[in-house]
């Protein structure tokens, strides 16, 4: 079967690789680029653990072939912190105990970060619905919703 030469930018670094069409973006990111922060749960689009950002939009990397991402800019959870300095959303997760085992966390962070403008206009039930594509088996979601609210509140105070 055919192989394809692709160029993608991931967290600001440019990678050129040869891929077979059936390689999922999730496996490309984990096995080829060794960025294992992106987690894989269900591999058929229902759990949200594999969410990354593709040209700014949250997408499921298990429902996307690497070859489809040719020419795109991808952001993964590894792109969030600035050295030891956590991203404000990560810091809010820590403060609100929004994670226990952490398996769902990268996907939630990627989803939430991609939707911050929309989330800042939402009521709590709307926030819960917006996050319904990410399954967390540990926290009961309360801490996650609190982290979202804390983040949008501090953004608002900063005038964003």
């Amino acid at each position: 079967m055919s192989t394809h030469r692709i160029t993608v930018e991931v967290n600001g670094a440019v990678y050129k690789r040869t891929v077979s069409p059936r390689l999922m973006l999730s496996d490309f990111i984990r096995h080829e680029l060794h960025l294992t922060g992106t987690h894989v749960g269900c591999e058929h689009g229902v759990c949200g653990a594999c969410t990354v950002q593709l040209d700014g939009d949250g997408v499921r990397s298990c429902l996307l072939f690497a070859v489809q991402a040719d020419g795109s800019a991808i952001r993964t959870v590894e792109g969030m912190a600035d050295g030891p300095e956590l991203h404000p959303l990560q810091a809010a997760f820590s403060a609100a105990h929004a994670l226990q085992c952490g398996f769902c966390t990268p996907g939630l962070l990627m989803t939430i970060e991609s939707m911050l403008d929309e989330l800042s206009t939402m009521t709590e039930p709307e926030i819960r619905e917006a996050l319904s594509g990410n399954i967390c088996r540990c926290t009961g979601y309360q801490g996650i919703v609190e982290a979202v609210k804390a983040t949008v509140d501090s953004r608002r105070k900063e005038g964003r």
Partner: protein
Amino acid sequence: MKPPDFDYVAPTSIADAITALGSDSEAKVLAGGQSLIPLLAFRLASPALLVDLARVDGLDHVTDEGDRLVIGAMTRQRGAERDPRLADRCPLLVEALRQVGHPQIRSRGTIGGSVAHADPAGELPGVVLALGGRVHVTGPAGERTIEAEELFQGFLSTAIADDEILTAVELPASGPRTGWSVVEISRRPGDYALCGALCQVEIGDSGSVVGAHLALIGVGDRPMRATAVEAAMLGGASPTEAAALAPEGLSPGSDVHASSDYRLHLATVTSRRALTQALERAV
């Protein structure tokens, strides 16, 4: 959960896409992949060649033609949902889009892919049927249009031939004094509906209902138009009276998610709520 091997092409013109699709009897179109890729992961489909439409010129657009809106097949659902022109000119579509899966699904999922996939519980097939839209398709023999009434032929099957590509979805633009509503019942937000009602009503100068469109999803092998309910609304019935006719002609299956009887009950409930809300919005 890994897809089988296949070849992949990403043509940049409709003509090249048609040629690629015709080059292999086991070729299939790839749009957003949000339905097709899970089918591959489960190995329920094993095409020899995927023809990705993402780089084809001219398939990602929203064109306002006055009384009709033409939406390119590769318009992403998330883009359409945030398009102020569609919110203004086809609010039923925008409300329906918000109930399709989750935001991350809609970032990739396309308008054309959802209609071509023809899931009996899909919201967009319901919108196309309710509003009496049509689709534009192109194949080796040229272009043609297919009316909504002929488009949906059964479970995941449409009148679009294997060697044809859906290029655009055309919907009537909503006029003055139009109300709309999408009401669905599902176990969790983002799940396919156990039953859903998509409706639009138009009020005339005298204040009576002059247009009534209602499609039900999740209650058959394809989206179903509730003609008895529509006729009752045009005849002056109340939403409660009209919605009581919703189960007419339906025989939904029973499965692990809901029994047939429960789905019939939901057909009435969702129709009543949707008609009531649409009328309220039509002022």
